């Protein structure tokens, strides 16, 4: 989480960015599947047809939108909590850590 690149060689920094990017891609694919699983379970209950009914489709859409908003908000709160936790004693300090932990939230909301 505290992706500080200070003190890394250019090669290490490049490798770290590649690892972070790969993790972000994996995370977004997992989120995609998680979202479908969750909203399908919540919204679809009848199997009289093999196509989503209009009502079910609307439910799935709203469910996914809602989940993304919830994730974004939880990410913000999480970033704030981390900031408090890490910046504990010194209020003004830890500028670097705040920017990297807030990127966690945006990764989810993206």
């Amino acid at each position: 989480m505290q992706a500080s690149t200070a003190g890394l060689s250019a090669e290490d920094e490049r490798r770290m960015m590649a690892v972070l990017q790969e993790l972000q891609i994996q995370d977004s694919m997992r989120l995609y599947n998680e979202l479908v699983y969750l909203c399908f379970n919540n919204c679809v209950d009848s199997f009289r047809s093999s196509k989503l009914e209009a009502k079910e489709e609307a439910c799935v859409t709203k469910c996914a939108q809602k989940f993304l908003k919830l994730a974004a908000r939880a990410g913000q709160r999480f970033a704030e909590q981390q900031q408090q936790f890490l910046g504990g004693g010194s209020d003004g300090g830890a500028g670097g850590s705040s920017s990297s932990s807030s990127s966690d939230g945006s990764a989810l909301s993206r």
Partner: protein
Amino acid sequence: MASALAAGVNPVDLARREMSFYADLFQKMTDSCFRKCVTRYHDGELQTGEGVCVDRCVFKYMGAVQRIGELLQEGQPMPAAGGAPSVQ
């Protein structure tokens, strides 16, 4: 896909990503459809009604995959787009 290659993404990595995406999808889909379609455990056979339910469940699940994929592509750029060809 082309943009991913241009960005220097290893095709093996791409295939690995895609494989793990579909493995995850399949596992979640079977889990959902089993929960929704199988309600009794009288014997080890899949009952006619349960089988029909599973058939429809799979198509409906993929409909939800499609819909949410569209939603994600509208709102936020998905770096995984190359690995999820089910979306258009």
